[in-house]
């Protein structure tokens, strides 16, 4: 059980890192719009939101547009 003296402080260090990460994410504006961003994963064409297109899918968004 002595290992708790070692493991719990490690857990606390991770805790501190998580706090820092979350605060950084909020400060950088990633959570400014909770309504819109929550929808993106559910969109059929959500590939468009992903910056790299090459190799992700044979169809580029433009191709898809013409097939609609």
């Amino acid at each position, binding site marked *: 059980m002595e290992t708790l003296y070692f493991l719990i402080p490690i857990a606390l260090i991770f805790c501190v890192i998580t706090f820092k990460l979350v605060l950084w994410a909020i400060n950088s504006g990633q959570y400014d719009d909770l*309504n819109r961003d929550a929808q993106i994963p559910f969109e059929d064409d959500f590939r468009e939101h992903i910056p790299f297109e090459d190799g992700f899918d044979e169809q580029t968004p433009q191709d898809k547009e013409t097939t609609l």
Partner: protein
Amino acid sequence: MNATETNPIPVSSATDAVCFHCGEDLPSKPWTSQINGEAQLMCCPGCKAVADLICASGMGDFYRKRTHFAETPQAANLDDDFSSYELSIAKRRNTQESDDATEQTDLLILGMTCPACSWLVERRVGHQEGVLAAKVNLNESRLNLQLSADANIPKIMRSIADLGYQVQPFQVSARTKALAEEHRILLKRVAVAGLGMMQVGMFAIALHAGNIYGMESQYEHLMRWVSLPVALFVTYYSAAGFFKSAWQHVKHGALIMDLPIALALGLALSASVFATLTGGGEVYFDSVVMFTFFLLVARFTEQRGRFKNSLTLQTLQDAMPHTATVIGHDGITKVAISEIPLGTSIRLFKGDRVPLDAQTTSGICDVDESAFTGESITRSVEVGDTVYAGTVIAHGTCDALVTALPGSTRLDALERAILYAETTKPRIALMADRIAGVFVAVILTIAAATAVYWYQNEPAEALWIALAVLVVSCPCALGLATPAALSNAAQTLRRRGIIARGESAIETLAKIDTVIFDKTGTLTDGAFDCVEIQSSSRDSGQDLYYLACRLQEYSNHPITSAFQWPPGRPYRPLVEHPELEQALKHTHSERPVSVSGRGILIKLTNSEYRLGNRGFIEELCGTQPWPESQLHWLGLANDSGVLAFFGVRDRARIDASVVVDFFKSQGMHVHLLTGDSSPQATLLAHSLRIEHVCSGATPEGKLAYVEKLQARGAKTLMIGDGINDAAVLAQADVGIAVAHASDMAKAEADMVILSNQLNALCKTYSLATRTKRIIIENLGWALCYNAVAIPFAAAGHVPPWLAALGMSFSSIVVVLNSLRINKIT
């Protein structure tokens, strides 16, 4: 509000008797559009145009994704070409720091009701030439565009307007920034409290298990010591707001809900720290952190609802033009309003909003002052008359000399009246705060008495038992009772197209006993009805009405809405007036022309026809005996004499009488308060069975009227739309602005009804009374719970884990009960 809600919108069913696009009631002959392979009914050509466009561009998916109806497209918005914005945006572009390749610009888009709208806008704009990236921020109704140098901004704005949204450049105000910052701060507090709750909760489970199964004291100390820094940090970071606001109010002698919250948090935390340091007693770290988290989540939800409304309305206020057309020695130039000196000659065109008070020097025009005075018929302005800033030139063009600068116009005087009204508005004390005061006093007394009693009998236990009283007394349930109910009510309202600014209005609405309606734009929609025809010739009234309908087709004067030949009824030749029939039939010949502020005339080779007011008709055929009654009378004449008189009156909205009857059935006094001085007001009041009428009131007069009612103890609800109603909307206990209200009225109202349906008022009122009932239930539950739990705690029978459990349980009951507001319809 979010994706998990059930979809209230039909995806493909054509059975609902509402417009598939915007959800408004359908007219008797609706339009249809093919959407996703099925024919759907549309309420107006505007909705049809937008729906067809959406489907034609392959975005029919919009109707599957959406969770709310779209807004009805505004006709005025549909034919603007936005070319005037190129300049203002280009100017701003230059001032922005950006590299040459890409440029950023922000647009404000109004009317986006759900995430599917933002999807639609992004898709549509994203395929425009020159657009590199388009991203909507739904919270702020803002579209952020990254453009290449060749982007055509007016065309982009046009493409958004085609979808039925209103679009204008986004102006970043200090307030906008402050609100966005507030959102981030609160979100950070919630996040920190949530993470802290998980961490401390983990240690707390070990401690509770240790209480039951036994635990070596060294590990118990370890758990306490690791919980301590986390709980301290969460309290410092997340709960500081409660302490601050409690302290600020105590300084002013007010006991608010934040006080017991702060006390419970503070005492539980210090007692736990004390217990950790000394190694005795109990620790409540988990309760402290959990309590903080729950309260913050409730406040965050509530703030999120307010955030969007205030942003949209704030940006809307800026509707006044920034420039005026100045006539100088070297031609016509556009000059910024702030740089125009007194006495400058400016030119006003049809459709312009007058930028400054000015005296006309040449030209004749009609001014639409309905937003200003409530007068439904445009005022015709002759040389030497004054036009006021904020009114709109409905017809004609004129030159005028500036007589008042920004800050001293009639509009500014109105704004000052609004400011006055805001500061004198009576605040009805909110139920929760009143109860909180008493509750806090009672709890503190009980806790003190408990501490004193146990100190005399068992000094070691005194602190812990007194603390258990404070924790179990659960200010949480009381603290959540009102905000949880109100924020749910606000969300429900918003789903029905009603925006509430600050939930206190919902609570106040339930206490209303006097309802005051504005006339033009509120009870009427600005259109007219022809209710009486006096024929002075051989022709029947029907034939003469038909003649008037044919004549007015070429005029856009609002009064012509009284002469609409019913659609579907066939046109027939005017046998009695062959020359006129010839002229109307052949597009090349003479057209009827409308004469500013007077009427319509057509000059033919052998005769002349006129439809208009008394002066206009008498000019053609001499002094006439004019009908005397409360109606507004128009004459129809040709050179052989007067053919007919038409008695015209304001047309009440279809649902106006339903709404008036509803409020009367609730036992309220209904008043009509209008700036219109014609007998029309009395007529309308009569037909709607409204007893109290005050007509011809200036904006200041309206303010005084409501103040007088309030002085007599009435709790007033004002419903209006114009700039002239803005002050009185702010003054009334609750002000509601109806659809198409002027921006200033929207900004001053406590609630804004977005749909064009007046009967939304009935729903709003019912919801408010239901919310009030739920709040009472919540408070009742919290008090009952306390009445049972406190005696046990004071007797020393409540262990800490049970106190924490009881606290959470009573809060959950309150939150669940509040959710019922959404369910009952």
